[in-house]
């Protein structure tokens, strides 16, 4: 055996450091979810978009949505900003820019199909599914209509059929999941005449977007919106102007929605496990306290009673003794006085006798 003390300690140290470094790095890496492999997505490039609203028309047609009040070729609709509604899964908004680069610029508003969707995480009947295609789909047959998904969605996408009294559902873009599985393009992508919308694998779309920014850095803001926002989404956006100027929030952070609530949810078993034990303990303590108080009270009462009766006895005995002695004294006194009286009387008699004798 040629293991020296120095060698041995060295091994131990190396093993310890190895577990420390290796495991930690591994654990952190595994926590990062990057979406279903090969999931699909759409890249919207607003430098290519001409704002023709044909995507809206395409969406309306493939989803059998009711015809709008104003036709899709009426571009004046975009004079006022809009949002998704119960009967519009997606809308295009126009933003006029005063500064360079010259506008107008367009923005697509619709479901971004998050990698870890807030709506799906928040739904208490699991009406939402993150499909392997990348689409976030919604099943109206289980929906209760609580609208918590609308509270949860950071992009304010889900809309609700407020006009229906008895069977309202949520409406939102489902990335034409039913068409994707058949090998067809989403309605909006198919309708786009200028390829402002590109459908493909998310990984590939990110590469395309990077390449576009690299080739024309003057043309694009150096950011792919949707790559990391709220954990990332399957819809990705490229823009000529900062996203916030078109009302797209840049303060959402990169933490996915489920991570925001997972701490609170993991506290549930702790409360369920600990509270009953602690409360039963508190109950047992208060019971014990009561019991001790009761016995102490009983003991104290008993002691007081004992003491009182003992005292009473001694006092009685004292009184008796005193009475006895007084009685004795009285007798003695009476005897004494009687004797004295007798002696006195005897004295007088003898004196009388003497005087009689004298006379």
């Amino acid at each position, binding site marked *: 055996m040629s293991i020296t003390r120095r060698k041995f300690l060295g091994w131990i140290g190396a093993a310890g450091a190895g577990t420390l470094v290796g495991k930690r790095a591994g654990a952190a890496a595994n926590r990062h979810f990057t979406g279903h492999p090969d999931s699909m997505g759409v890249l919207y490039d607003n430098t290519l978009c001409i704002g023709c609203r044909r995507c809206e028309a395409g969406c309306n047609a493939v989803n059998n949505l009711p015809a709008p009040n104003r036709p899709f070729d009426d571009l004046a609709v975009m004079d006022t900003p809009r949002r998704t509604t119960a009967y519009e899964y997606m809308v295009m908004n126009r933003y006029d820019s005063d500064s360079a680069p010259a506008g107008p610029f367009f923005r697509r508003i619709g479901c971004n199909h998050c990698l870890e969707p807030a709506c799906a995480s928040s739904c208490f009947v699991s009406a939402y599914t993150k499909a392997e295609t990348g689409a976030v789909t919604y099943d109206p047959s289980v929906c*209760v209509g609580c609208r918590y998904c609308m509270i949860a969605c950071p992009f304010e996408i889900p809309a609700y059929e407020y006009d229906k009294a008895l069977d309202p559902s949520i409406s939102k873009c489902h990335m034409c999941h039913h068409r994707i599985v058949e090998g067809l393009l989403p309605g909006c992508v198919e309708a786009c005449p200028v390829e402002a919308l590109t459908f493909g694998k998310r990984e590939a779309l990110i590469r395309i977007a990077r390449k576009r920014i690299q080739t024309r850095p003057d043309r694009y803001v150096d950011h792919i919106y949707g790559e990391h926002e709220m954990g990332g989404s399957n819809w990705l956006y490229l823009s000529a102007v900062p996203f916030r100027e078109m009302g797209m929030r840049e303060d959402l952070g990169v933490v996915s929605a489920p991570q925001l609530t997972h701490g609170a949810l993991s506290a549930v078993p702790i409360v369920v496990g600990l509270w009953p034990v602690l*409360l039963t303990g508190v109950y047992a303590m208060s019971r014990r306290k009561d019991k001790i108080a009761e016995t102490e009270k009983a003991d104290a009462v008993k002691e007081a009673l004992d003491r009182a009766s003992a005292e009473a006895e001694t006092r009685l005995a004292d009184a008796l003794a005193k009475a006895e002695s007084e009685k004795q004294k009285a007798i003695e006194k009476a005897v004494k006085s009687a004797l004295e009286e007798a002696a006195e009387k005897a004295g007088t008699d003898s004196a009388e006798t003497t005087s009689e004798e004298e006379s």
Partner: protein
Amino acid sequence: MSQEHVVARTIFTPFNVVTGIILAIGGILTIMRFTMGLGAVTNLSHYNPWGIWIGFDLLVGVALAAGGYVTSAAVYIFGMKKYHSAVRPAILTGFLGYALVVVALHYDLGKPWRLPYPFIVSQGTTSILFEVGACVALYLTVLFLEFSSAPLEWLGFRRTRNLVVKLTIVLTIFGVVLSTLHQSSLGALFLIAPSKLHPLWYSPYLPFYFFVSSVVAGLSMVIFENTLTHRYLNHKMDEEHKTGADPLALGFGKAAALVLAGYFSIKVIGIANGNHWNLLNTPYGYWFLVELLGFVALPAFLYAVGVRDKNINLIRYTAAWTVLGIVINRLNVSLIAFNWHLPSSERYFPSFIEIGVTLFIVTLGVVIFRFIVTRMPILYQHPEYEGH
């Protein structure tokens, strides 16, 4: 004597007339809600999916019904037997509060008949709302069982009643567990929306805030409600309830002062944790300070002074003030500071019908409370069960 008899029999007392009108209007509004849909009767929108039916009826309703678990825990678990007379009224308010929360929820939900779906059809266990739903459903059952001893005495079912009474400790512990979970998870509901709730109100501590403030709400509600029943239902009370009111106000007021002080501290720690000090000097910051100083720090101080000086009246006014503070806090989180980033044109304000339905449900609660209290042994001990 005959005069009194006539007065007692007429149903057109001021109370009955006012509540009758509110209930009748409520009936009409109910029909409107279920025939015309939420869009026609509410000011809800795609941006503002939750209005006062959630912000007030659910969030405030559940918080103010916390008196049930707070009182029963104090008396049965912590052994504060001198407050025993407060348990039944508190349990009754809790039970009615939760029952009405569930009733109110039916107005707000799109398809209320699917309310059991989360449990029997499709479980969305990743949702905080699932936790809320499960705990509220279970706790409503617990409250029903806790409350049931009163109607069972009233109806004379002695054996069932004794069985229920034997379960007291188990039910109380179960009630505290469930209340801890759902009171806190009502706050946790908003954890998922950091981008919508103002940073002064949004905090990872939201569940703690909601739980701790529910204890405050429970304590204050019991004092407040005790004041009301003393004023209006004094003739229904036995000696224990009449004489127990002042010690109750002192004891619960002391507890409320302490818990409010703790609540104040964790709220301040929350600002420090988020480093939001700069936001205090903004309009929302001023409103936040009104809530924090006016409705948390001030009542904590007033409760403490009231207890020190044995000033029962001060404690009672403070209780009402604190209850108002809880209402403001829940409305802040769910409505006022929620969606603060939206332009004012997209902000929510309740419609008259929404306010009407809320008023209807609160009135319904008061009427049912009065019905039960004037008939069942709530404010007095049933003569056949005294000392049990």
